[in-house]
C-alpha cells in the first residue's frame, strides 16, 4: 500500500507491505539505524520514536498507521551539526554507557519536554518508565533530563 509521511522533516511516499513495522521501515527502508530493537514487543523502549508529538514504540506501530504522520527519530534531534540540549546533557551527566538504550531514552525524554518543558522528577521517571537501561540505573538519565529542562537555552530539533 502507498503511504505518505514525514521523517525528521523530510517527506516520503512509499509503497509498503501493510505488515511492515515502523522500526523496519525506519531501519531497513530509510537506513535510519539509530532506532534500536531490544525486544520487539514494546517492553524495552529502545525503539522509541516520536509520532505526531507522542513517544511510541516503533516495533508496535505498523506502516499503515504512519500514513499522514510526522515522525521524529534520534537522527532528527541534532540540527545543523549542533546537538540537541538533551543530547548534550546526556553526555555531560554520564547518562550514556553502552548507548544501546540511549536513542529510545532520548526520544521519550524529548516527547516529555515537548509537552511539558518543566517536568517534576516523578514526571521524568514516568516518561522514561518504558525505557529499560541495564548499565546506568536511571539516576544519571533523570539528572540529564532535569538539567535539559532547567536550562533556558532553546532546545533545537523541536517538532512543531
Amino acid at each position: 500500500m502507498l503511504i505518505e509521511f514525514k521523517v525528521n522533516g523530510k517527506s516520503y511516499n512509499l509503497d509498503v507491505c501493510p505488515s511492515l513495522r515502523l522500526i523496519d521501515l525506519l531501519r531497513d527502508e530509510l537506513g535510519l539505524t539509530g532506532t534500536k530493537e531490544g525486544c520487539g514487543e514494546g517492553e524495552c523502549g529502545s525503539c522509541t520514536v516520536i509520532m505526531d508529538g507522542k513517544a511510541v514504540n516503533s516495533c508496535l506501530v505498523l506502516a499503515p498507521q504512519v500514513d499522514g504522520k510526522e515522525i521524529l527519530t534520534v537522527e532528527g534531534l541534532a540540527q545543523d551539526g549542533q546537538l540537541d540540549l538533551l543530547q548534550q546533557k546526556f553526555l555531560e551527566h554520564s547518562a550514556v554507557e553502552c548507548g544501546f538504550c540511549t536513542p529510545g531514552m532520548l526520544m521519550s525524554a524529548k516527547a516529555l519536554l515537548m509537552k511539558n518543558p518543566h517536568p517534576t522528577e516523578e514526571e521524568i521517571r514516568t516518561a522514561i518508565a518504558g525505557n529499560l537501561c541495564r548499565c546506568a540505573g536511571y539516576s544519571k538519565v533523570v539528572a540529564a533530563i532535569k538539567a535539559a529542562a532547567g536550562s533556558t537555552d532553546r532546545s533545537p530539533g523541536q517538532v512543531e
Partner: protein
Amino acid sequence: MKKEFKYVGGTFPCDHGVRKVTGDLDYCCDVKLPNMLYAKLLLSPIPHGIVKKIDTSRAEKVPGVIKIFSHFNAPDKMFSTYRIIPGQQMCIADETLFAERVKYVGDRVAAVVATSFAAAREAVSLIDVEYEELPALLTPEEALNNREVKIQPRGNVAHEYVVDVGDVPSTTEDCITMESETYTQRIHHAAIEPHGCIAYYDSSGKLTIWTPTQSVYGVRTVVAELFDLKYSDVRVIKLPIGGSFGGKQEFLFEPVTSFMAMETKRPVKLILDREECIVHTRVRPEVKSRIKTTVTKSGKLLELVADSTLNAGAYSGAAPDYVTTLSQKVCKLYRIPHYRHSGRAVYTNTVRFGGSRGWGAPEIITAVEIHMDQVAKKLGMDPVEFRLQNLVHPYDMDQVLHLSLGNARVIECLTKGAEAFRWKERYNSQDKQGRYRRGVGVACGAHKNGMYGGFIDSTSMVLKMNEDGSLNLNASIHDVGCGIGTVMKIIIAEVLDIDLDLITVTEADTEYTGYDPGVYGSRVTYVVGACAKKTAELLKDQILENAALILGKPKEYLRVENGCVYTVGEAEKRVITYKEIAEKAVRENFRCLNAAYTYYSTSNPGSYSVQFAEVVVDTLTGLTSVTDFLAVSDIGRALNRGMVEGQFQGAVQMGIGYALCEEIKIDDKGRPLNNSFANYHMLTALDMPDVKVLLIEHEGDDGPFGAKSIGEISNVPTAAAVVNAVNNALGTSLSDLPVTPDKILAALAEQKKVGAC
C-alpha cells in the same frame, strides 16, 4: 599530602558518546555488508531428546532460502564456547554446532540462511523435526539422584571441589552456631542489545568475524581450532557492544555463524531476538548454599563451613571454574580461622549458565551476608558491629588463594557508610507495626582485580604521537559499555598532560592490535589501565628526549605541562609544543615517537563494596519498594567519576532485581516461563531509588593512579543488602530469592501462626 590530578577523577563522556546520542554508532545489528545473508536458528522445544529426522522440504520452498543446516549436514566436532587459550584447563569440549541429542529447551537444532531475515524466519517455522523424547532432569536434585539418565557422557556432575583452610582455634569463650540455607535464582543478563555476530570467509581462505565480544582472541582460539584454520587466518574485530555483564564473555554464536559463512561463501549475519537471548545464551546460575558458622558470644567468627550446589544447565561451559570461584570470595571478605567450602556444578536439562557479573560472588556473598545478619540477630548485636569484628584488614592474605588483599579498605567503607547512611539511628528506630513496614539492611562484598594468580594477565599496546601532536593508542580494548576507551584516554592525558580529544583509542582486532585475553575478572582498569600508564610514561620519555635534542638541554631539566615541554632552572623559561616536538622528531632528529609495552600484572588485591538499603514493605500486598540506597566502594582511585557512579547505579538496578523480582523459572516440561521482557521483570526508572555513591579513595595497589575495579564488585552485595532490609522490616529470615510478594506474604502468615501459638 593529597595528590592533585588534572584529568584523573574528573567526569568525561564515554568514548563515541556523540555517535551514541545521535544514533550514528553502528552496533552489530546495524552493520550491512555487500551480499550479506541472514541466519535464523531453530531451537529445541523439548528438554531432552534425539533429533531423529528433519524435513526441510517446506522451508526450502520459501523464496530467498539459500541453505538449511542441522547435525545431518554439519561437522560433529566437539568444542567449548568457554575456551580463551588453547589447551585451557577445566574447559570441557562437549557441544557441537547443531545438537543430535538436544539437552534443553533452547538447544540449537538447525539454522536457515536466506537473503533476508524475514525469509530465514519464515523458513525456520516450516522445518519439521521429529524428536525421540528422553526423560528430562530439571533440577540439580533430580540430576544427582537419577543414576539412569546421563545428561553428559561423564555423568551429571560437571565438577566437584573441597577447599579446607585453617583450623578452629581453641577458645574458652562460649560460642553459638548458626545454620542457614540460601537459594539464588537464575537471572538474565539483559543487555539491551541482543546477541549476534557477522562472519565472512573470503576466497583467500581468510575468515573475518565482526562481533560484540569480551575477547577477540578467545573467539579466534575457538573458531580456528574448530575449523582447523591457522590462527592468523581468523581475524576477529570487536564491534561496539550494547551491554554484556558477562553474557558476551563466551563465544556463543561465532562458531555457528562462521560455519554458515564458510559453507555459503558469503557474509552471514545472525542476530537473536529477545526470547532467544533468554533461553539460548547464558544465565546467571541458580545456586543453593548451606552455611554453618561457629561464633563466640562476643562476635568473633571461628569457623565457616559452606556447601554449594550450582545448576550448570546442560553443558559444561564455565562450570568447573565458576563453581570453584564460589569458594574464592568469602576469605577475601572475612577473617575466618577455619574455612571449609565444598561444592559441585550439576548438569540439568535446563537453560545453560555462564559467566555473570561478579562470577560467583553475588551468589555466595548473598548467602553469606544473609547468614551474617542471622548470626548478628542471634547474638543480639548490631549487624554493623558484628561485621566490623570480622572483616579483613588492609594487606591481609587471602588464605584460599594465597594472595595479598592489598590495601583492602572494607572496614572503612563500612564505618564511613554507616555514618553517611545514619545506620545506627535508622536501624534502632524503625517502625515495625502497621501495613507499611520500613527496614534497613547492610551487606559487604569482595571481588578481585584481574586474573593474576591463576591465568594469563598480560596485555600489549603501542602508543604513538603523530606529527601534529595527536595520539593513537593501539590496543586490544574491549569496551563492554562502561567507557573503558575514555578511561585509557584519561590515564594517558594525566601522564602527558594533554587534552583527551587528541587521543584516539582502537578497539580490539586480532589482525592489528596486540594480545589481550579479554574482559574477565575485573581486570581491565587495573591491568590494561596500568599498561596504558606505563606506555604513556615511555612515550613521555621519548617526547622529553626529543625535546632535549631540540632545546639543547638534558631531559632532566625539562617538564611537561598542558601539551608542551618547558625548561626548568633557567632564568627565562623556554617552551615547545608537542606538535613541534613530534614534527621535528621526524624531520630533524629522524626519530619516531612510538612507545610499545607489554605489561604483566603481578598482584590481585581485593575490591570492596558495602551497601545500605532502606525498604518499605506493604504487608497487605507483599510488595517491596527500595526507598533509599547507598553504595560505598573501596575503589582505590576513581578515574572517570561520573561513569563510576553510573556503573554503581546500574549495578544496584541489577542487584535489586536479583533480590526482589528477576527470575527465569522453568516449568515441569522444562520450558522457561520468563522468556520475554513482558514476563521477565526488571526495575524501571519509577521503581529505582536515587542511588547514592560514596567512594573511598586510597592508593596502595598497582592499578593506574591507584585505581581498582568496580564493574563487578558494584553488584556483589546489593541483593543481600535489600533482603536484609526486608528481613529487618518484617522480622523474618527470608533467604529464598527473589523475595517476591508471595514469599513475603507466606512468611508473614507463618509468623502470625507461630505468634498465635
